[in-house]
């Protein structure tokens, strides 16, 4: 009786080495493929709590070109928008860093040529408590230091009046947008462009 294997021992090694070489090259390629523009183009990072609409906002602000880039440590979506003269890169860091925002992954963000930060507050009834969102905003301010931080209240179409009132009391110059009704998006994009030389 003979229990013969599909591949001989040396063939198995060749097979496995080939699989590793292919997978490794692909992962490495995706790393090298990170466009140089990712770190050089003026960027606007969109931050905020979960389900605040960061990804949707990036797609709305730069609807024409969408990229996504994944790497061993980070996944990132970004879109480039050009008004014909200037190019701005909107970065959706939802999946950029593993875990929550902290000093370590802020260093990753700082590699980007970021000019502004948009911080989203979800003011819909089912969202995180507004106090918690404000704490997140203040932490972001501390972590990023001096940067053009644009606070934006989203989900205006389903606003919780108490949350909005509290937000207005605690955060100055709050902008209001509705991703659903597409309100306030053009003006937000214009003010972002204005902040870039």
């Amino acid at each position, binding site marked *: 009786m003979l*229990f013969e294997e599909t591949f001989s021992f040396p063939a*198995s090694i060749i097979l496995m080495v080939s699989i590793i070489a292919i997978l490794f090259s692909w992962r490495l390629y995706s790393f090298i493929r990170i466009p140089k523009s990712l770190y050089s183009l003026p960027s606007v990072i969109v931050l905020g709590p979960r389900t605040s609409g960061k990804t949707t906002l990036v797609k709305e602000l730069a609807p024409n070109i969408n990229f996504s880039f994944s790497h061993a440590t980070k996944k990132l979506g970004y879109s480039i928008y050009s008004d014909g003269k200037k190019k701005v890169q909107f970065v959706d860091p939802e999946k950029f860093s593993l875990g929550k925002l902290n000093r370590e992954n802020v260093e990753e963000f700082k590699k980007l040529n970021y000019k502004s930060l948009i911080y989203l507050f979800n003011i819909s009834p089912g969202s995180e408590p507004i106090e918690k969102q404000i704490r997140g905003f203040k932490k972001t301010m501390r972590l990023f230091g001096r940067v053009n931080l644009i606070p934006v209240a989203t989900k205006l179409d389903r606003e919780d009046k108490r949350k909005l009132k509290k937000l207005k009391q605690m955060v100055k110059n709050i902008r209001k947008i509705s991703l659903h009704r597409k309100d306030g998006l053009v003006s937000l994009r214009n003010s972002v462009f204005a902040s870039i030389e």
Partner: protein
Amino acid sequence: MNESAESEMKLYLSLLLFVILLNISIVLATVVLHEAGHFTVGNYFECDDIKIVLYDADTSSTYTQMSCSPDTPLLLLALGCFLFVVPFAMAFLILKDNPMRHFAWVILGFNLLIGFGDIELLTKTSIIPFITGIIGLFLIVVGESLLINKYLLLIEKRL
């Protein structure tokens, strides 16, 4: 290529070499344990002339050979290939945060892939072994991808 990019590339190439060497060791161990499983079950059923041949230059193959009485259950002899390989693979899952834990999937997948002939002996068809072979290949790709990702993650933290 600037100096830092060059040192990064060296780091990646050394990682590739490391992963390849690890895999060769794991493949060797899995093949031996696979054959040892057949050997042990054959021995249990008192088969004669049991031999593990890692490489037969005449037929370019790896196999376990034995002479058994006709009433020896072929099913158990064929399934012997899982006897040591499954616990070996499961042992890797104990390594919680170690990237090497993903070798568990590679080992199981590889065992299914090389066990094509054993499953064919059992089922007498080629469809089921073909499906298990595809599952095996899938497990290998998933395991290796996770492994490589984890190691790249470690390198990333160092850079």
